[in-house]
Each structure stands twice: as C-alpha cells, then as structure tokens.
C-alpha cells in the first residue's frame, strides 16, 4: 500500500485494502465450530421434515388443534417470520432513504435475514393446509377445471404479497451483492470463483455500470419501502378482515407493521451479536450500530404496547359483549400466562433500553433481543388462539389448544431451516457490503449533494 496524500488517517478511515482483506477473509475456509453448528441445524431440520411427513400421512389431526381453535402454531410461525423479514428491508431500504449512514455495516446481514425469513414464512401456509398436496390451487393459473382463485380472500392477497416480497427482497439482496461478488471473483482461488464469475455478471465497476447501479439501488429502496408496509398490512388483514372478536380491528395494520419491525430489529441483534464475533468483524459492526438498533426498538415497542392498551380500551368502551368477553378471556382465561409473558417481554423489558448503559451492553442487548423474539412470537399466538377459543357462541367454547410433538418438530425445523440458510450465506458471501464500506470511508472527502439519483446515496 503506497503512501498517498489523499488518505487522511487522522479521520480514522480504514483503507480500501484493509476492507477487502477483512471482509473477504470471512468467506475463507470455515472453522470446525462452523461445521458443528451446521450439523446441529441440519439434524433439527431433519426432525422437522419427519414431523411434517408424519402429519401429511396421518392427517392434520396429529397437530393439537381443538375446535374451534382451527389455527394455531403454524399460522403463528407464519406471522412471526414475516415480521422478522421486515426489519431487513427497513434497515437496508428505509434507512437508506433517510440516509442513516450507520446502516452500512448491518444492511447486508439484515437483507439476507429478510430473504431467508420470507422463505421460512412461506412454508407455513402450506404446512397448515388440510390437503397440502393441492397447495398450487392457491395460485391463479389456467387449468382444465376453468377455475380461478377467489381474489376477495385475504389469503390470496397473502399469496401475492408474500411472493412479491420474496422476489423484490431477493433481487435487492442479490443486486447489492454484485460488486462484492466481483471483488470476491477477482480474489478467490478455490472452486467458488466459477460461481462468483457467473453471479458477478461480468461486473467491472466501470463508470457506466456504477451510474446505473446507483439509480437501480435507489429505485429499489423506493419500491421496497411501501412494499414492506403493504406486506405486513396484508398479513394483518388475514385477521382484521374476519368478523372474529379480537381479530376484527382497524388498528391491526399499523399495529402489525410496528410489531414486525420491532421483532425484526430484535432478530437482527440476535444474529449479528454472535456473527460479529464469529467472523471477527468487531471493527465494522461496532457498539454504535447496536445502540442505534436499540434506539429504534424503543419507539416500536412503545407503539406495540399502545396497541395492546387500545385493544382493551375499545373492547371495554364499545360495550360489545363479544369483544369484551374475548379480551377478558385473553387476560384471565386459559391462555392468560402467555399473554402476561408477552406483556413482560414486549412492553416492560424494552423500557430498559432507555438507559445508555443497557443499550451499550452487548450481553444485555442479546438477552433482551431474545426475550423480544419470544414476546413477539407469543403475541401472535395469543392473538390467534385466544381469540378463536372464545368467539361468539358460548356453546362452542370446548377446545383448549395443546400443541403436540409434531408442531414442536415442525416449528423447530423451521428455525433450523432459517439458520441453515443464514449460516451458508455468511460463509459464501460478504456479510458486510465492501463497496458501501469503501464509499463511506471515501478517501476524497465529501462531494457536494447533487440532483442525480445518486443523491439518494449516503452523505457523511
């Protein structure tokens, strides 16, 4: 590295060379511990597949459903994972639009998380079907029956929302990777360089490529932002569009979106804290980043808590026997324990983030993020199960939902599936965007804000 006057070490910028070295190191030959982790998740995944095949062969009855509770853990998982998916796009797209410079270090990881979370979420609507072998009937395609799908059903909205979201977020991740893949291509010696060669699409980083790339990236951010909002709104409408007390509520869309971002941020932390040490990226993913994530969690947590309160208030204020009955049952009925644990995890614990000492303590953050994940999972469980268990007709209040090993296996398998994908990703692709890293540490000081689409880029 020849000395050149342009680099201003006192500004604390790392050199491009160092960025390339450090980040490309993360995709070198993995440690045994990595393979151990890989083996564990693979084993759990197999258990889940076994559970699923058992369920398909014997019938959905092997799950713990008890009428009138017709939806339970599978849909809970679906909503949970869709929620997780959200923060990814939030961090990479929304923060991009808001020019939050610190996002750079964590954007790539959260984009990957988004894609894998959607891929996990997408499984559950199929797993929970009574006849999963006909899942393709949910897609509108020309067939000899001359039948189409019912576009009035929120489930069809889901089909469109989720597949759109999967497509867009995957493209977002991949295109953002292209320059880094090119960098890897030019450095990598093992077999993967052929893979990189294909994936890099012949990227050379010419002026022309960079210009269109910028435009593309900005536009994608602009498209992804409304998409994120719409997707979880649609998911919330699965419930809000029904007439069931506890589901039929106008606040669901914003309430779910906030909850989704909240849980997503928690999951980002849960993933990044270990990844950072595992891949020795302490210099890039710093305490400062986690503190910012924590700061984002505070408002989202507050919004969610506010939604809880509102629900109960409305139930009481409207004086509808149905609404009121449902919420009394939610707080005091068979599922009350879950409800209160949820309140603890989602409303009370995050309040501690108001203290900087907590925000800047990785251990504390890790524990909190785990608790929030649990809390948000329980939120969906409580909304779904307790509302179903206590609807209009008292004569129908028979079932008390008790999950079986099958549901356990499939849920665990889903988590394994997610972590498997994530592990494979971070060992084969740069877990932090090198190009963006290089940009924010640009040797030639800040250029003027221009009117070009590139104006969407981060400003120091």
């Amino acid at each position, binding site marked *: 590295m020849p000395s050149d006057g342009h680099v201003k070490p006192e500004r604390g910028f790392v050199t491009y060379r160092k960025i390339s070295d450090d980040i490309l190191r993360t995709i070198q030959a993995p440690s045994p511990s990595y393979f151990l982790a890989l083996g564990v998740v693979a084993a759990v995944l197999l258990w889940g*597949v076994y559970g*699923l*095949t058992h369920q*398909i*062969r*014997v*019938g959905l009855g092997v799950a713990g459903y008890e009428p009138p509770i017709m939806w339970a853990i599978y849909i809970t998982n679906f909503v949970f994972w869709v929620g997780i998916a959200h923060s990814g796009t939030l961090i990479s797209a929304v923060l991009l639009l808001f020019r939050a410079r610190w996002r750079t270090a964590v954007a790539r990881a959260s984009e990957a998380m988004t894609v894998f979370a*959607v*891929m996990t979420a*997408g*499984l559950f609507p*199929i*797993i929970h079907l009574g*006849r*999963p*072998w006909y*899942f*393709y009937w949910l897609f509108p395609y020309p*067939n*000899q*029956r*001359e*039948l189409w799908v019912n576009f009035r059903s929120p489930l069809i909205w889901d089909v469109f929302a989720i*597949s759109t979201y*999967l*497509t867009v977020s*995957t*493209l977002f991740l*991949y295109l953002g990777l292209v320059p880094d893949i090119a960098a890897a291509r030019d450095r990598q010696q093992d077999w993967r360089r052929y893979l990189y060669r294909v994936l890099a699409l012949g990227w050379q980083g010419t002026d022309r490529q960079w210009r269109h790339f910028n435009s593309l990236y900005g536009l994608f951010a602009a498209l992804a932002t409304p998409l994120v909002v719409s997707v979880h709104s649609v998911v919330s409408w699965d419930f809000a569009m029904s007439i069931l007390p506890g589901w039929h509520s106008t606040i669901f869309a914003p309430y779910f979106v906030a909850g989704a971002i909240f849980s997503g941020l928690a999951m980002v932390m849960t993933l990044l804290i270990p990844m950072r040490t595992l891949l020795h990226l302490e210099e890039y993913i710093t305490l400062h980043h986690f503190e910012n994530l924590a700061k984002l969690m505070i408002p989202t947590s507050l919004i969610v808590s506010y939604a809880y309160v509102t629900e109960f208030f409305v139930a009481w204020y409207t004086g509808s026997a149905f609404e009121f009955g449902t919420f009394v049952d939610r707080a005091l009925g068979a599922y009350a324990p879950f409800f209160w644990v949820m309140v603890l995890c989602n409303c009370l614990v995050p309040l501690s983030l108001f203290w900087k000492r907590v925000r800047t303590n990785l251990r504390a953050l890790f524990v909190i993020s785990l608790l929030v994940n649990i809390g948000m999972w329980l939120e969906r469980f409580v909304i779904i199960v307790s509302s179903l268990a206590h609807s209009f007709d008292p004569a129908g209040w028979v079932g008390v939902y008790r999950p079986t090993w099958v549901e356990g296996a499939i849920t665990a398998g889903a988590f394994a599936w997610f972590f498997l*994908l994530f592990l494979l990703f971070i060992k084969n692709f740069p877990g932090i965007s090198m190009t963006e890293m290089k940009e924010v540490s640009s040797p030639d000081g800040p250029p003027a804000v221009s009117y070009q689409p590139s104006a969407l880029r981060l400003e120091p």
Partner: protein
Amino acid sequence: MARRGDNSLTRALLPATLTLILVGLVALVFRVGAQGQPPVPTQSTESGTRPSRGSSTVQPLAFSHRLHVRERTIPCLTCHTYARRGPVAGIPSVQRCAQCHLTIAKDRPEIVKLLKYWEDKAPIPWLRVHDLPDYVRFTHKRHVLADVTCETCHGDVAGMDAAVQTAPLTMGWCVGCHKQLYAPTGCLTCHY
C-alpha cells in the same frame, strides 16, 4: 433482455419454489399409502381416478357394439335401459343378453361363453370404460331427457367393437357444454 430479467427472477424464486415443490411431492408420496378406508359403495372427495383417454381394455366377452348398433340397428336404450329413468345408464343384465341369444347365434364361441354365465347365474365382470371421479354426480336421466345424444359423450360407439372413451370427460369439457347450452354451472350441480 427479457431472458436476463427472467434469469434473475427465476433465481430469486428458485429456493421458494423448490421448497414448495418438495412439500408437495412429499405430500403426494405419502397420499398413496394413506387411504386405509374399506371399499365404500359411495363417493369420496379424494378419489381422482381419471380414466385414461382412448384406452381400450380387454373385456371378458368380445362384445361388438358395431355389430349390434350399426348392423342390427338396435337402439342404445334397448340394452342400457335405465338411462332415461335414472342416473345410471345400466349395463344390460345377463338375462337381457340371454333373452335374445338363447335363440340367436347360440353356437358362436363368445355366445357360448355368455350362455355359460347365464347358466351359472353369474354376472359378467365387465371392465369400466367411462369412469368419472367419485365426487362427480352425473345423471344420465336429465341429459337424455334434454336430448343430449349418447354420441356427445360416448363418441361413435356404433363404429366401435369394444367401447373406448373418446371424450376427455374433464370438468372443463363438461362446463364448456353447460355454458354453451345455458345449463346450470353452479358447483353444486355436480358436487355435493
């Protein structure tokens, strides 16, 4: 350009599609073993036994429709007696065959076989040619009374020896005709 667009699109959808298909396949595989129900003389939702089109099966007797219908000009309803009265057209009873063949062409080998059945008072185990899925409720009566010709669905049986299926007998095919003739197209017309 479209090619490239598709390329990236499929790449993006690939993992999802694969997982979906995986689940679907697993499901299918296990379906086949899953049906432990005793033979029920009634319809089932799941049974999708689609008749293979144009497949001619080897019947226990080499009965020739052509001979009976075209050359001897016997109307269909003479033997398939119930078509006008009930949902099932009815395979002629052994008795009905015997009524004629006790006198006609007694010495032909196939007729000898037939008369054997008659003496044993045993039914003839014909193989089914036109077979709708069990969840479809088709009634010959209404169609015959609406002057839908036999050929419409059964093809030119008069020209066949052993009957073979000529029409696809798929839902779309039924519905097409129903729409054309303003016959009811509600699902409950055939599925309940």
